[in-house]
């Protein structure tokens, strides 16, 4: 029973984790670099949602939309003005730049809000118990929201013209530009959507606990693990990877203390890179 409960928790946590992991992998697919600034955008989203929720008194779903939009706009601007100019100097420079960016943005949040933990304004509800399995209503709502967001994203990518353009650029930028797709516009759109997803994921993961400026950095290893395990650059891979990491982190509780949750992500990365570097659904890793 305990194992079942852990698997259930893991699936729910994994679905929430899939949201920022998709953001990371989408940036990698289109812009071809690992954007470590994802961490601070998760934090920014969490705090934007916090303001919308506590200061303006919005319910959770509109607050999540605020988290998406604010993190998305900052993600688009930071890519446009900070990271894009660095990409010409190569991947090492861009990766280091994105680390510096994430520390700068995280500290802007710290400057404004301080280090103390904050909680969202949520109604208190009793956990549901269904045939011995315990589910908190908040977790369940998070699960539903994450599923809806991921479904909307898949629909966008496969049904709309813009979504197809994005996939085309990810697939073969040269061919896409010959076909007349404006790759700069696609890059902007990817930055906006991906960082928006990061912000939304940051708020979702903060909903059933508390938030502080480090909320993004604490989760970033799990997000990277999800993307790498699923295959960096593959969006369905990010979902699969997130579920694997979510369940893995929960199952690790059988043998390890909760503090080691994030270390599970690291072990998963090492294992995948040793035995199947391209990940479960990825194309290539070199």
């Amino acid at each position, binding site marked *: 029973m305990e194992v079942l409960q852990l698997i259930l928790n893991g699936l729910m946590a994994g679905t929430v984790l899939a949201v920022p992991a998709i953001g990371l992998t989408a940036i990698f697919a289109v812009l071809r670099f690992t954007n470590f600034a994802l961490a601070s955008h998760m934090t920014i989203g969490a705090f934007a949602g916090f303001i919308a929720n506590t200061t303006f008194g919005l319910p959770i779903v509109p607050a999540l939309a605020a988290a998406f939009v604010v993190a998305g706009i900052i993600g688009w601007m930071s890519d446009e003005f900070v990271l894009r100019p*660095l990409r010409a100097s190569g991947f*090492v420079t861009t990766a280091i730049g994105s*680390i510096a960016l994430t*520390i700068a943005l995280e500290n802007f949040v710290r400057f404004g809000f301080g280090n103390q933990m904050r909680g969202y304004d949520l109604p208190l509800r009793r956990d549901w118990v269904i045939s011995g399995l315990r589910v908190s209503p908040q977790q369940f709502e998070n699960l539903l929201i994450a599923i809806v967001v991921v479904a909307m994203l898949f629909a966008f990518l496969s049904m709309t013209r813009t979504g197809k353009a994005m996939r085309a650029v990810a697939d073969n930028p040269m061919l896409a530009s010959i076909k007349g797709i404006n790759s700069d516009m696609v890059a902007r759109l990817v930055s906006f959507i991906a960082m928006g997803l990061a912000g939304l994921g940051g708020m979702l993961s903060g909903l059933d606990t508390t938030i502080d400026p480090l909320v993004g950095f604490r989760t970033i290893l799990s997000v990277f693990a999800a993307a790498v395990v699923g295959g960096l650059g593959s969006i369905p891979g990010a979902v699969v990877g997130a579920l694997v990491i979510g369940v893995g982190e929960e199952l690790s509780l059988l043998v390890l203390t909760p503090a080691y949750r994030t270390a599970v992500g*690291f072990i998963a*990365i090492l294992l995948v*890179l040793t035995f199947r570097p391209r990940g479960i659904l990825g194309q290539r890793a070199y």
Partner: protein
Amino acid sequence: MEHYLVAMGVTAGIYALMALGMNVIWGMAGLINLGLVGFFAVGAYTSGILTLKFGWPILAGIAAGTLVASLFGVFVALITVRLRGDYLAIVTLGFAETMRIIMSNELWIANGTDGLSGIPGPFRQALGPHAFNLQFLAIVIVAVAILFVLLQRLTRSPFGRVLRGIREDEQVVQVAGKNVVMFKVKAFAVGTAALGLSGALYGHFTSYIAPDLFAPLLTLYIKLSLLSGGLGNNVGAVVGAVLVVFFLESTRFVIPYVPELSAVQGAALREILIAVALLLILRIRARGLIPEKVGDFPLPEPTRASQPLKP
């Protein structure tokens, strides 16, 4: 004030050791290492534990710290070096975080978040605090000098040339028959050894280490050192480290005078300044105060046969 300057000198020396090590990995071989603090921590903890709990002599502890950090470097490099650089970035960052988590939670290794205190320093009791700091400054300067000379030789050796070749164009080096993977692993081994050495020295200097000290910010300081001094250049690495310590310490004096700023805000502002400085240097593609010299080996004059055909 003199006390303070001596302590800053030691910090600058330890940063210089790290910058020299990172210069081999990043400046020469063009590889990324975002987990610098992890290797620094491994050096500090290895030496701290061996001298404190097992009574090893300090020199042996430092040597062990250097070696163990290097072994971890080889391990991390072996897993990722064949893959795209992005994976090396992720794995090194994850390594540092995982080290911090382990050290924070395993009480039996090194007291968890309380950290290790009372790490012995050479002649700490006999000399008293002031003379001890001066002595340590001398030790660190000697260490920087030795490492500098060794790395300077390495830079000019065929090994260093191959590393720079890998940085510029891996395929060309491969075509020349060099085992690129082995060279990258070796670059990591040398660089992380220097990081371990600096960590070990740091522990013996302050006598106290804790997981909190090994935050990712240190990685940023060292990158800033290298970029401001001149990437790919050992002199630049040392000069940059001194500059960064000076910059960090001067913000410590200036920020308290900014009115209506809490301590947390001051610290945040400092980190923002560091990050923005780093981004600016990256952005304007500055080559640092002392740019790496290229063209020590002039290209051969084109011979008649290799001249382009005129239409």
